[in-house]
């Protein structure tokens, strides 16, 4: 109550907080990360516009990796389990998250999906996010790496149009690269320049799941990230042993 004149006005109490708005999602993302780390699984968040070829790339990747790196997939879509069914046909476990009207996956949904998935014995987990270059960028999932696809038919100015998404990419894949000969106004170098303008040193690879172009470089990148992750885990164990 106002202390000056005895009127009955209640003064609001100012409460400073300074807290990230998505703190709860970030905490759940850290929890997911701990799950992945405990099982030695490299988790990769695949993001792109709808129809850029995420699922086709996964199918080609699963075929190419074979028994070398056992993997599983979490699929995010607004509706249908079509994508999970496509993945399961290759003998790989796939959990479908249908988000209803939500335009992105969040850490909570991924955590739920993890309850249905056996991580033991896996080397890789792909999370195929909802096709959307805007909303998924704001929600951490706990995955170790962000891979963003831009297909040749979408145009080479995507990084400038979607800076929040491309700024955090650890790898940019220019998909449907078999069409580069047909679509003559797409320059891979423009994508590279757009990504660099965002201060992002991520490699940019032209890839075609259909023709196989760029597949060896993509698989090599995945193997390299596995090694990097194992090194980090090894250092952590060594540090703990020293304490």
């Amino acid at each position, binding site marked *: *109550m106002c202390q000056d004149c005895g009127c009955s006005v*209640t003064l*609001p*109490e*100012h*409460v*400073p*907080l*300074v*807290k*990230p*708005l*998505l*703190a*709860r*999602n970030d905490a759940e993302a850290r929890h997911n990360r701990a799950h992945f780390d405990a099982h030695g699984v490299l988790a990769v968040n695949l993001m792109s516009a709808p129809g850029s070829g995420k699922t086709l790339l996964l199918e080609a990747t699963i075929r190419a990796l074979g028994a070398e790196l056992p993997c599983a997939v979490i699929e995010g879509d607004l509706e249908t389990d079509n994508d999970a069914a496509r993945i399961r046909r290759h003998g790989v476990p796939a959990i479908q998250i249908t988000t209803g009207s*939500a*335009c*992105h996956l*969040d850490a909570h949904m991924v955590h739920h999906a993890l309850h249905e998935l056996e991580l033991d014995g896996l080397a890789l987990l792909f999370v195929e996010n909802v096709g959307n270059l*805007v*909303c998924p*960028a*704001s*929600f951490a999932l706990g995955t170790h790496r962000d891979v963003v696809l831009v297909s040749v038919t979408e145009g080479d100015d995507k990084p*400038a*149009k979607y*800076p*929040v*998404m491309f*700024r955090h990419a650890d790898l940019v894949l220019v998909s449907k690269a078999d069409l580069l000969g047909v679509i003559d106004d797409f320059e891979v170098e423009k994508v590279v320049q*757009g990504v*660099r*303008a*965002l*201060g992002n*040193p991520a490699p940019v690879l032209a890839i075609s799941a259909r023709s196989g172009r760029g597949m060896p470089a993509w698989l090599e990148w995945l193997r390299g990230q596995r090694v990097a992750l194992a090194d980090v885990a090894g250092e952590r164990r060594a540090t703990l042993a020293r304490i």
Partner: protein
Amino acid sequence: MHELAICQALLDEVERVARERQAERVAAVRVRCGALAGVEPELLHRAYEVARAGTLAADAELTIEESPVRVYCPRCGSETAARVQRLVCGACGEWRTEVVAGDELTLMSIELITAEGARPQGGI
């Protein structure tokens, strides 16, 4: 349109703090939103109008401070303003910069109305 999901996270936290402090209602909410946060302030305002109904913040005014993008250049040591599509150093043109401001999405503060006598003593 993920602004609604973000508003729900915002209101969950606002209500949690308000209940913890035994407030009757929330009078105001202040958020800082960077240009690189991936959130449109205008859409956040509109989503907030919908999401706040029926909560302790049903009458609370939302203020969004927009925070411009600034980058630090490890090569020349400058800190300069940048545009969202072009995060290069404004002084020397180096592209390997670090964003030091403009990517935050932060709940800064809230104003609570608490009945006399119910307000807990001391700090948080």
